[in-house]
């Protein structure tokens, strides 16, 4: 299964994702696809995200059983804890500390 969550995305991208995925809540898209199709869909997100931001999750052979990738600016940043992917939440004015973490 794969899930994409969009924030602040242009309507044309939202419409485009709805071509393959089910929009179960505003900006939340769900579907079951192969790796190839997933990459293709993510290409659309990359091309159309503009100033918004996105995260995609999918089933994977990691210890947690899933994996995810992100696009655009967000206060939540993926961090690697010795091979376990978690998420850090930045305070309002500290966007620059991201680089040190990732």
């Amino acid at each position, binding site marked *: 299964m794969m899930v994409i969550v969009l924030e602040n995305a242009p309507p044309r991208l939202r419409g485009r994702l709805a071509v393959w995925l089910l929009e179960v809540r505003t900006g939340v898209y769900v579907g079951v696809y192969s790796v190839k199709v997933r990459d293709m869909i993510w290409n659309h997100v990359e091309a159309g995200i503009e100033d918004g931001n996105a995260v995609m999750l999918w089933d994977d*052979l*990691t*210890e*947690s059983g899933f994996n995810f990738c992100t696009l655009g600016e967000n206060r939540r940043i993926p*961090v690697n*804890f*010795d*091979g*376990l992917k*978690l*998420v*850090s*939440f*930045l*305070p309002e004015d*500290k966007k620059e*500390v991201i680089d040190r*973490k990732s």
Partner: protein
Amino acid sequence: MSTGNNPLLPKLTPITIKERVSLVYVEKGNLDVLDGAFVVVDVNGVRTHIPIGGVSCLMLEPGTRISHSAVALAARVGCLICWIGEAGVRLYASGQPGGARSDRLLYQAQLALNENTRLKVVKQMYRMRFGDEPPAKRSVNQLRGIEGSRVRQMYKLFAKRFGVPWKYREYDTDNWNKGDMPNRCLSAATAALYGIAESAVLAAGYAPAIGFIHTGKPLSFVYDIADLFKFETVVPIAFQIASKNPQNSEQVVRHACRETFRSTKLLQRIIPAIEDVLAAGGITKPEPPEDALPPAIPEKESLADDGHRS
């Protein structure tokens, strides 16, 4: 600050070890509870949520501080917290109180106290480790001697396979950097395995101190159980990484351990393995005495392992 007694939400309960991820290492920051979630806050104010209920063992390195409410939350969801020193040397452990099951403790003690049942358990451990029948009519002492020489042989074989110079297994917990590269990798890897083994022993309801092959240590039984899986999981990894001689060897080892714990399904197998070796003793778990007082309020069905207090 609520740590799980929020009246608006259902009560927190532990889940089984087999559904969790193995380990999370935290190297610096303040561990606390914010809005009911377990967080690490660093000096810059960056918060990272640790899904503590889905972790079997949390390893805190020097440079961390943990609040009372954070430890309480870890205990409530059954996550073992280990305070570890330089290179995984354990300092203290808590956060997952053991000894929740008197029937298991009595059963384990009964098996260990009787020379006959103890030998049966040791033989079963031997079978699981080496995949063959232990020589008959040997005492625990003799079996331990045979095991020791086989283990030294296996270290040698792995060293040869990965082209690592190897003398012998040595670890000096007072002077960590003294050991050679393969020994340091081995210590880091076994420390990770011990963390998981301890959380499994506790979750299954047994006492970490009552060992069968090992004795006299707070974690004797944990070493017994970890040894069942050591050569299948962490030893090859340690030698493989030592052969590459990486700069941050410890971190590479941890990363690889996580991968092998996942691929060998260690967390699914470890509690059944504990039950299996103990069952070889051939006795059943004791029934409560007839004249004992049963609990006034019976335990509710739970998602947790038997040894978790929920």
